[in-house]
């Protein structure tokens, strides 16, 4: 695994050096969502018997921030180094494609977890939170973050320009995360949209993650776990395959 520790360290250092923009800013964005949505909807929406809307919203926002930032980290790091050409510094050394994959995904996961933890800490003031089954919290945070980090690697490698990456983000990642039950329980949706949500893997990440806090969820956390883990395995295989062939990285 020579090269892995350094590549991982470099990727973490890269976002940490601009931490205000990469960690603090998304925490503030999530807080704004919380303030506005909980203010408008607290008295109107009731999802679970014992849980206030604000409390319901917090895990969703934490997970949404975690996922979006994991994606943002690997994708923007790759596209930047591709556009500037500095990608060759990691293509010239004897770094295996597996080490390459792990370093980018784990560093993105660290960024996602940092932002997620930041959001969680910041929202503790607004809603009393319970941690009913913390292992689920951990499991879905790690799996979900890795999936979006993997998607970020794919997007970063596939995109040749920044606007292609923006398209990937706006037309795939944003709808998937927003339409996943962050702001509502999908049981409040009409049947058709409930069906659609069941095809969205992000729904299971958030539902399972939320289960860890309240011990209640729309579907069984075990079912979510299987679906999310399967997604991670498939995406990892796809990403590793791309890296092994040198797709778009080695002409």
């Amino acid at each position: 695994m020579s090269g892995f520790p350094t590549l991982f360290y470099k990727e973490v250092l890269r976002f940490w050096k601009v931490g205000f923009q990469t960690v603090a800013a998304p925490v503030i964005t999530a807080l704004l969502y919380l303030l506005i949505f909980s203010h408008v909807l607290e008295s109107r929406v009731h999802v679970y018997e014992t849980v206030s809307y604000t409390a319901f919203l917090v895990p969703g926002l934490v997970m949404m921030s975690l996922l979006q930032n994991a994606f943002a980290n690997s994708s923007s790091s790759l596209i930047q180094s591709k556009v500037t050409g500095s990608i060759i510094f990691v293509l010239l050394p004897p770094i295996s494609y597996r080490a390459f994959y792990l370093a980018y995904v784990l560093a993105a996961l660290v960024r996602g977890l940092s932002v997620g933890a930041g959001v969680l800490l910041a929202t503790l003031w607004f809603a009393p939170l319970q941690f009913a089954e913390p292992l689920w919290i951990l499991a879905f945070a790690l799996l979900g973050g890795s999936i979006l980090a993997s998607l970020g690697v794919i997007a970063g490698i596939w995109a040749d320009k920044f606007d292609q990456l923006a398209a990937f983000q706006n037309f795939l990642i944003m709808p998937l995360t927003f339409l996943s039950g962050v702001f509502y329980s999908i049981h409040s949706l009409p049947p058709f949209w409930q069906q659609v949500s069941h095809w969205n893997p992000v729904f299971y990440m958030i539902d399972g993650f939320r289960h860890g806090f309240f011990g209640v969820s729309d579907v069984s956390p075990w079912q979510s776990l299987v679906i999310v883990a399967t997604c991670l395995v498939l995406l990892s295989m796809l990403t590793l395959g791309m890296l092994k062939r040198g797709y778009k990285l080695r002409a």
Partner: protein
Amino acid sequence: MTSAIRVQQVAKRFGSVEALAGVSLDVRQGEFFGLLGPNGAGKTTLISALAGLVRLDSGHIEVMGCDVVSDYRNARRQLGVVPQELVFDPFFSVRETLKIQCGYFGIRQTRARDAWIDEILENLDLTSKANANMRSLSGGMKRRVLVAQALVHKPPVIVLDEPTAGVDVELRQTLWQFIRSLNRDGHTVVLTTHYLEEAESLCTRIAMLKAGRVVALDTTANLLRRFSVHALRLKLAPGVMLPPPLASRAQEKEGAWSIAFDQYSEIEPVLAELRANGCVLEDLEIGKPDLEEVFVRVMRGKEDRFPSGVGADARSPSSVGVTG
């Protein structure tokens, strides 16, 4: 002994462009090797293939006996590449950049590593910039950092793709001093450059590429001998004619006559002949063989060999193409 670099029948197309059309060459260990050719000849493509940045359509490349595809990790450990493009990572300082590059090669954080980084910085005149951010460096300094990055893992084979483009005279000299000393210590050096005097003075052997093909491959001395000669250049006073025996050997170029010769002793009779015929000279100079002339002739093609017969030998460039 295994070759430092062995390139066998390498071909690479980019769409309709044939960047490499069956290139074969060997670079021996310890050589200072020049890879020359006009823009678009395929030099960078060949180097990229060597470094695993470009996948070949066919052919094989080995670095110190390691195949660059099947044994890519060992091949890359043997190789330090200074890329042609001026690239840098804007997030880091010069020293951070070099430490990170060490880590990519699995070099542990030891005193020896730090000492080597300091030595590289010193030799490339970067010590005062060690803690400066990459963004704040001038173009020439960024180029030096690229050279430094290629050397962190002390590669036995060093490949420099136009390392002196945009670099001032002083640094060019310090850079070559440093690279020469690495070469003396046993590192193999491969160089591409458009400064032919540079190649002539540094390289022991030279390959010339044209449109993805090797059109000349020989020692620098042999190339100079075959394609370029000593020449006596004469400018005659207005109205003066060259005596017929000399005129038959001379070529006229830009209002001056050029007479090729092999030995300096051949000059004397020419001057005597001029004197005997009362020819008044306006100017006289002795031209030495130079690589630029070789380059121009080789690039123009086989037909345009040096015509006088002096110094040019009968072998065609391709017949000496692959030497062991």
